[in-house]
């Protein structure tokens, strides 16, 4: 699954570009992929010393509420809260995409993993054939939240919903991600592909799953 993250400001903000967030507080849900995506969007627009973040809640609903209260200048959101924010008049000043990555125990069963990959591959094809049909899942996750419950399928920008059939982790990308995190002091030590990616299990599972991709 490809995750979309957006840097969002309130309707009354004077910020229109990511550069204008320099030295302004941006709430990030530290430790989550959306936070790292937010950090990458910020550092692409300003010197690192100008990046100013504060701890945001894990729940995008709470981060959105904090944004609207003016607790911080911007935050990073994912769907369906990007759509909620847009409907509320908020502006997206930057958008990015990143891979969700499966983390498995060393003893994960190869056949079960391959079955998982085959099923997910089929699901990706179903969704990509008719994304609008499946956006209700984003609403379903937030039952009891009126701002989400009022959304309809046509409210969603399907360009922000991207799915890719699962594949092996490219080592250069894993290495880059590790080195990038280390450069921010978020992770220690040097990247060692042998401890991070079990290539034997990964390769066997993807080979077993390959049949469905050929069909």
């Amino acid at each position, binding site marked *: 699954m490809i995750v979309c993250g957006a840097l969002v400001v309130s309707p009354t903000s004077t910020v229109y570009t990511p550069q204008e967030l320099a030295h302004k507080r941006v709430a990030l*849900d530290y430790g*989550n992929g959306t936070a790292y995506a937010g950090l990458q969007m910020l550092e692409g627009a300003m010197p690192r010393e100008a990046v100013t973040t504060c701890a945001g809640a894990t729940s995008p609903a709470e981060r959105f509420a904090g944004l609207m209260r003016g607790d911080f200048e911007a935050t990073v959101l994912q769907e369906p809260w990007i759509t909620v924010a847009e409907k509320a008049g908020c502006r997206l000043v930057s958008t990015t995409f990143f891979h969700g990555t499966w983390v498995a125990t060393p003893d994960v069963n190869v056949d079960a993993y391959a079955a998982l990959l085959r*099923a*997910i591959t089929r699901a990706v094809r179903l969704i990509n054939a008719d994304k609008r049909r499946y956006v209700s*899942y*984003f609403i379903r996750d937030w039952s009891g939240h009126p701002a989400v419950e009022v959304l309809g399928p046509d409210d969603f920008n399907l360009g922000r919903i991207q799915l890719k059939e699962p594949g092996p982790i490219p080592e250069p990308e894993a290495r880059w991600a590790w080195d990038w995190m280390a450069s921010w002091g978020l992770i220690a030590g040097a990247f060692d592909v042998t401890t991070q990616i079990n290539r034997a299990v990964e390769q066997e599972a993807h080979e077993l799953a390959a049949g469905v991709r050929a069909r």
Partner: protein
Amino acid sequence: MAMTMTIERVMAFMGLDVLVARDEGLFEAEGLDLRIAALPPEEIRSAAEGTPTKPTTNQGKLQARGHAQMFQA
């Protein structure tokens, strides 16, 4: 006999493919009994309690205690 696997809870924004596969019976069709486990609400902590270098994350907690084989990061 069906294979079993337990994964940590996913949401649509990062696991739409998993949720659709579950609801469309695609795991079952592959002979996989996929179980999705969630942390008890009282164990869920907010990232607001963390710092960049010492984040508070809920991901991987079930895997760490042997209650799930996989989670999505």
